[in-house]
């Protein structure tokens, strides 16, 4: 056998032994290195440690109870015991037992809260959600007895992670950074959750932008985003699976935001550019031991509050008046607003709505850094070039219902140059714009320059057409 063949065979054997995936037990969430590299190495390490402590790794995640994430919790009571088999009863609020039943999740186990095993955890071999029976793995010193109470928790997070890994990760990345393996082939790029910004929401943007609600995320996963690579995941994902994925995505978003918050805070005093005298090391040490732990809690509280704020009742924007009749007059008023100086739609969307307004030909400034972009055109918060929607195509990424278009105009599209108009425009004006925008793809039916008598004819047609 020639040396070359020997080498090839040896390499093949080596790769067989090593497996393809490498050592998965060391899987980690990627650091937001663009941010973190601005810090002193010690400060950078501190941020990483904080994140590891409070979020863990993809395969060994930590449920940080300070965050408004539904990690899944099920309390129950043991009814009968037969060796390792426990027949149990869950209390009424026990959430999503099917997530708990998923075979790879049962190893999470349960924690006894009363009886002789109180405070002890036992791993499960099997869980049958239909008959509510467990099979535990050996490990308890004394057998549980009827009436013992237990709690199982965190199953949403684990179920969500598993589903995320299967369906979402190849685009959105392990840490939700939008840098999955297929991401580089996609335009537009997959969402980077780490800013905590989602574009298509039902929530207001004034005075401060409100986060996406669970329902908003659900809508996007269920219906997909036409015009992008985000497909619909229903009916493939069932209701309980959607819930679990949504919680996991929210959790990743909060993780990214907290990471950003920590880096931003540390950057003030401990950026990489600081001269490395003795003082700074010492001051960093003092800061990390005294002030930093509180700050971590503070920022987690802040981020958490924003996300739980989105879930408060009445958050989704609902206009005070229903959509008015879609008449030629209304469309015409909408068109005048569209072209006019009050709404300024034309600046980006162009006079015919093709998305080719003058702003797209101009050099724009980054609102965060105040620097002018190197290339012409508009950019989003993630630094990607972005085009205003071509309204003639009839493709509505955030949904085509009147309420969707209304919300887009009212609150803008978060993370993009599309501004909210809740202050600039009245409800009636927004509805006129909705009627106009929805009519643009069907240009033969759009109102021509109106003559008083022809308007009446049109309105009759459209009354039926809608």
């Amino acid at each position: 056998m020639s040396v070359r063949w020997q080498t090839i065979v040896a390499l093949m054997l080596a790769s067989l032994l090593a497996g393809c995936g490498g050592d998965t037990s060391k899987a980690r969430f990627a650091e937001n290195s663009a941010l973190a590299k601005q810090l002193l190495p010690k400060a950078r390490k501190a941020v990483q440690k904080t994140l590891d402590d409070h979020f863990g790794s993809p395969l060994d995640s930590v449920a940080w109870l300070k965050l408004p994430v539904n990690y899944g919790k099920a309390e129950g009571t043991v009814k009968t015991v037969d060796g390792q088999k426990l027949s149990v009863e869950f209390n009424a609020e026990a959430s999503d037992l099917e997530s708990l039943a998923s075979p790879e999740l049962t190893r999470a186990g349960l924690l006894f809260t009363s009886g002789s095993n109180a405070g002890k955890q036992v791993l499960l071999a099997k869980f049958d959600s239909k008959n509510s029976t467990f099979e535990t793995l050996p490990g308890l010193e004394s057998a549980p007895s009827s009436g013992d109470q237990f709690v199982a928790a965190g199953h949403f997070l684990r179920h969500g992670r598993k589903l995320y890994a299967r369906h979402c990760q190849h685009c959105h990345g392990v840490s939700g950074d939008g840098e999955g393996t297929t991401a580089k082939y996609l335009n537009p790029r997959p969402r980077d959750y780490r800013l905590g910004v989602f574009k298509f929401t039902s929530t207001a943007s004034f005075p401060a932008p409100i986060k996406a609600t669970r329902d908003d995320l659900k809508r996007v996963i269920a219906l997909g985003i036409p015009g992008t690579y985000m497909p619909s995941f229903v009916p493939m994902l069932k209701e309980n699976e959607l819930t679990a994925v949504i919680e996991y995505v929210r959790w990743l978003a909060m993780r990214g935001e907290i990471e950003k918050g920590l880096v931003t805070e540390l950057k003030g005093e401990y950026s990489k550019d600081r001269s490395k005298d003795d003082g700074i090391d010492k001051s960093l040490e003092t800061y990390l031991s005294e002030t930093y732990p509180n700050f971590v809690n503070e920022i987690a509280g802040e981020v958490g509050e924003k996300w739980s704020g989105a879930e408060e009742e009445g958050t989704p924007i609902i206009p005070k008046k229903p959509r008015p009749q879609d008449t030629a007059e209304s469309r015409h008023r909408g068109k005048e607003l569209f072209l006019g100086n009050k709404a300024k739609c034309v600046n980006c969307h162009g006079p015919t709505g093709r998305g080719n307004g003058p702003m797209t030909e101009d050099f724009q400034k980054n609102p965060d850094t105040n620097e002018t972009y190197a290339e012409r055109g508009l950019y989003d918060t993630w630094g990607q070039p972005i085009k205003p929607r071509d309204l003639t195509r009839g493709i509505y990424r955030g949904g085509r219902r009147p309420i969707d278009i209304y919300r887009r105009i009212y609150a803008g599209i978060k993370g993009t140059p599309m501004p909210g108009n809740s202050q600039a425009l009245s409800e009636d004006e927004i509805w006129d714009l909705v009627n106009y925008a929805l009519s643009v793809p069907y240009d033969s039916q759009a109102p021509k320059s109106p003559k008083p008598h022809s308007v009446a004819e049109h309105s009759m047609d459209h009354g039926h057409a809608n």
Partner: protein
Amino acid sequence: MRKFWCLFFMFWPIAAIVYSAMSPAYGWWFPGPSLTELGQRIDNLFYLILIIITVVFIGTQVALGYALWKAAHNKDEKSHFSHGSHNLEVIWSVAPAVILLFLALYQMDVWRDFRVKAYFPEGTIESPIAEVTARQFEWRIRYPAPGKKLQLKPQPDDLYAVNDLHAPIGRAVMIQLRSEDVQHAFFLPHLRIKQDAIPGQVIPIWFKAEKKGLFELLCAELCGWGHYKMRAQLTAEREVDFQDYLKKLQADQNYDGFPASDSVAKKEE
């Protein structure tokens, strides 16, 4: 060693029969009997071909096994080489040709009823129920508004759904199949409908579901890395339910934050 080869060749027909006999119990066969009359005819064609193949396969294997077995015990007789035999060549060229020609002719009426537009059931071509557009990696569906006809170009009152095709039972319906990007295949395994979707073409498909229920709608053409995600469903339901579904879809699509009864636009409709 000679007997080994004999047993080796005899093993495969037996394995094939055992495997086929086990298949239905393990769900490796058709997903139940076809729910359409046309599908049953397609199944019949499949079984006819299966029978022919089985007979030929087992026949040739048994003949091969017999020859090997006999030769293994026969040390006296000399081999007979038939290479270049004109008669044999004619027989095994003509016999398969006859079988193939028979199949080609025999299946023609099924093909005609399934694919030839002029033979589509009455009423299907005039009013397709929906346009189904495949794209990476989902099925986007466009229905005409209740009481309207589907137009080639989108209309302002069209209704949209994704991955959720509804169709009435008991009558033949037609959909228009399109693709937005690459080649996909519209596959309703329970109804035995499979048709490639080709970018730039509008391909009509008709089917007549006889039974109500939820059925899988899959992509049967490897269309990219997310191919497995193209897993939609067909809801076959009674005509009234289908019309109700369209009305519900319409109400949802016109949702403006108010219940349908309060809305000015909808009241005057």
